[in-house]
């Protein structure tokens, strides 16, 4: 019983968004636009929930002296510094909040991102082994494309860059398309199940 109202809201919202896509006439245009704005606001407002949880988890860690609790103050202070500076100075360029973002948060993000250069290497080393013919194909096409990407490929044989182009434009396109079309079917079916209330486990228990 407690699920009926949420499911009704889900249904209404879903149907409005679909109709809004096909019908330019009012009231669907207005409803659809509003719903998207509202969605954004509700999802953004929820961030306080996450922030509260983060603080709760780390304060609890300190209180109960759980494993690695000594690092929890770092998270708490880091959060509070950014939060308070943001409230005081706003996101204006050249202010402390912006300074800390540019000189600490952004470089940390870039560094984590760049770890990928190491991880693609180790993943390639371990995964690309010709253990069966399908793995051999995976390995060969990766190897050819890598060769085609750098000058050494053309030095070995001037057709290697061409092979790279072909692999990227034909089998790669075909594979991507198959995955995309299939995934779209999955999305449509799942959305339908959600809108019609057949899939409702995301709401948790029925009672």
């Amino acid at each position: 019983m407690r699920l009926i109202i949420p499911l009704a809201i889900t249904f209404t919202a879903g149907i409005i968004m679909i109709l809004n896509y096909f019908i330019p006439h009012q009231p669907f245009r207005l409803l659809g636009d509003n719903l998207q704005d509202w969605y954004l606001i509700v999802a953004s407002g929820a961030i306080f929930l996450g922030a509260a949880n983060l603080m709760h988890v780390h304060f609890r860690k300190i209180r109960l002296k759980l494993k690695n609790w000594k690092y929890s103050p770092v998270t708490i202070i880091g959060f509070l510094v950014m939060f308070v500076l943001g409230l005081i100075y706003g996101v204006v360029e050249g202010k402390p909040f912006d300074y800390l973002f540019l000189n600490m948060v952004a470089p940390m993000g870039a560094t984590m991102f760049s770890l990928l250069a190491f991880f693609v290497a180790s993943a390639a080393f371990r995964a690309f082994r010709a253990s069966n013919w399908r793995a051999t194909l995976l390995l060969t096409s990766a190897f050819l494309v890598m060769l085609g990407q750098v000058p050494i490929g053309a030095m070995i044989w001037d057709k290697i860059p061409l092979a790279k182009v072909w692999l990227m434009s034909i089998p790669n396109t075909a594979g991507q398309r198959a995955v995309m079309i299939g995934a779209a079917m999955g999305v449509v079916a799942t959305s339908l199940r959600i809108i019609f209330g057949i899939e409702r486990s995301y709401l948790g228990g029925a009672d």
Partner: protein
Amino acid sequence: MNWEILGIWLGALVTFCLYSFLYRDNPFYKFAEHLFVGMSAGYWVIYNIENVLIPNWWQNMVPPEGGFNWVWVIPGIFALFMLARIVPKTAGLSRLALGMIIGTGAGLNMVSFFQTNAMSQVKGTIISVATGSAWDIFSSVVLVVGVVSGLVYFFFSKAHTGVVGKTANVGITILMVAFGASFGYTIMARLSLLIGRSQFLLEDWLPTIPRLLGLGG
């Protein structure tokens, strides 16, 4: 105090701390990781306030030029429902907000995925395979066969035996070639990121050391 140099040093410091993870987990990484999680969480809270809640909600509800738009109370209430989870007694209210978020997402995703991922991809595959050189014809055939057999691989209600099985086999084979090519192609972009960080350390940070020593001496 030179703020620019301090900034470069802060950036370099956290960069080294995070890179130390490549060796093994260690106190430096733990420190930087906890700092990163905390600071970025704080950043995103402010970001959401400044870029969504104030312009998209507050300024619509209470326009700077005066007045009050009652409609905008509704998303505010839904957002409060979401936050009601903090108190166990009112946690059930969050389902209303959840229903709205998920319904909107489902409706929106359904049509947009169908358009960009299904319709346009199918359209791109309806081609004539008999144009150009022998090689072009071969390529077009591979493209069409790849898409079709790839789709057959995703059939769930048919056992992969007989013709279906053979076609599905061709499909997964082409998928593997595609994955290999895509992996190989991406390596360059990933290395560029490392090159960028190395240039920061070698060309921005390293030269500040003699300058600092010069200042100190």
